[in-house]
């Protein structure tokens, strides 16, 4: 059975990728529905992308 540390690291990567995927999905849906650069969908999408990528970057350094 995998150690808790390994499971944790795997989960961090998995959810970071999920955040990025959600960010992209939000951006694509917002743009498809005619949303502008300051619409809620765009802002949330960018934020999800940033947090997902940021966490993935931190995870890759440790």
């Amino acid at each position, binding site marked *: 059975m995998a150690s*808790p*540390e390994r*499971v*944790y690291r795997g*989960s961090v990567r998995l*959810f970071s990728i*999920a*955040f990025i*995927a*959600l960010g992209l*999905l*939000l951006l694509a*849906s*917002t743009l498809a*529905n005619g*949303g502008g650069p300051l*619409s*809620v*969908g765009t802002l*949330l999408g960018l*934020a*999800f992308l940033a*947090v997902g990528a*940021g*966490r993935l970057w*931190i995870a890759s350094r*440790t």
Partner: protein
Amino acid sequence: MNPPEPRPQSEGQLEPSSKQRLEPLLQRATGVPGLFVAVYSAVGFSIYFALGVVADRGLGLTPLIFLAAGLLFVVTTLSYVEGGAMLRERGGSSSFARHAFNELIAFIAGWAILIDYLIVAALAAISVPHYLEPISGDLSEAGWEIGIATAVIAAACVLNIFNVTGRGRERPLAILALADIALQLAVIGVGVLAVFHPDRLTDQLHLFTSPDFHDIVYAAVVAMLAYAGIEAASDLAPDIDVDPRDLKRIVSVGALAVPLVYAGMAAIALMAVPVVAGPNGPETALGHEFVEAPVLGVVSAYHPFWVADGMRWLVMLIATPVLFWAATTALLGVSRHTYTLAINRQIPSWLGKLNSRHATPHVAIAICGLIAIGLIIPTNVKLLAGLYAFGAMLAITIAQLSIVRLRVKDPDRRRPFRVPLDVNWRGHRLPAPAIFGAIVSALAFLSVLAYHDTARWVGLGWMTFGLLFYAVYRKVFEGTTLTKRVSVTEKALTKQVPEVAFRNILVPIFGTKFDDDIVSTAGRLAAAEQEEGGAGDEGSRLAVVYVVEVPLTLPLDAELPPEVEQGAQRALKRASDVGEEYEDVDVTTEVVRARKIGAGIVDAARRYGSEAIVIGGEPPTKIKGGAKLGGIGAAKPAEIGAATEYVLKKAPCRVLLTAPPEAPPEAEAEPDPAERTATAGRD
């Protein structure tokens, strides 16, 4: 990994046995995964009941309100991490205030947090029956709702009293936490595909009219409910050994992720259950029909139907255990919190008394459980949310100010984590985020007083009651000032039940037919001790003594009359034979000479280092009156004789008294064997 730091002196030094008993309360979780599970258990659940009450007033601005409240959450988290990592004590804001200010401020914070723990437990419990609706819609009816919620609180109390907490259950809790995160992301992801209509967020939005300024401020303050659990998470400070770099890593991104997910869920929620024109202005069903189970309401609006149905079951399967565990965690917070208040003499120590077996403050848990059930009965989520905001804003303001003040008062103290962005003020490096957080949370607290009538009066009533209670307790019962720090040890809060050992038993005999029973009783106890391994390698021992009363007219070592000597030896031989019937029990015999039988027995017990005396209570003397008739001493007890009474009073160990039943007049000369037993003695 850093070695555990020594515990603060205020919690006292424990003897090994006591320490072992208290271990469940003190044991440390280690590593980042443990920290993640523990913190997530304390923080990650509140969206399941916070979304509705925030959307009720925030309407289309709800996602932005969650982000704004998330900003306060981030700066609050930074302060709590600095304080918790620095002080390594339970108590969160109360503990910070104790070090930064005084006991009175610490009590105000602690008392405010106490009601918040109870509210979170009540809210989580109220939500459970509503999230069970996919099974049957009846479960959210009033009778079932209160019944299930009460059962949740009762179960959470039992688990906490028996110390069944997250410790040692990291794996299932980690699975639950991961499932919860996955569910929240799935609600957003599926929502984007199923109900993504950004225009619905702004359809009924007329800034500063609908929602108006009061509504925005109110919703923003109540949104902090979504981040309930900061205090509970900070209570873990002394339990956790995490590298400061890991701590920074978790705080840096983790604190941002939670508000972001909540904002994302709020955005999807208001697209799925949009704001519509109502009789009293714009409204959303999230704040009414679905206020107790908003996430279930959101996924019910997904389409096609099979997606909604599947998501409803998924939400039920994950949200229900998450909420149940949230109630348990909140009551764990209560138990730790009351314990901390008790050891600092802010509440009577009997309230924080630890169960000797499970090391949990069972009295406090039971009382708080009853209060939580009382909060459930009105089933008014909005009222509870407002009341929560009262306590949370007060405690957060005190916490932020404490962190700022500690930078001035104790700048050289080791801080494994520091709130970033210092500003220099009169030579001190003050944390700008904490100053900002203090100002915002103080304003938020004032807004609760201004805009929420019920929270204002109930909250102020709670604080007034608490302060009066505190003042009376400190002044009258403790005889100290309101601000002075007074601590009691953990040991003092744990009533240790002394373990009675039967390795070394003294058995006084009197040459009656009673003797066999007394020796048998002692032999059984000694043999049982031997079987349980309590006797160690040396084995159990019976020291059988026959006490001969030597009159004061004779020296103690005077030659005894032959019939007395022979009678004593005969009785001891018989007792030895009976005692040796028990395997692995050594029997020694001795004739003891003493001026009084009782004194001889007590002296023998001391000499042998006996752990227990098994004695047959001799009948009381028939000479009544004592001092009343001019005799020496007080009246004699009616049930036992003088020798037994003396032993019970003076024995240096436990006494197991075997007394005969009341004998019929004709049989008094030959008392029947013992049928009654009683224990007495000194701990």
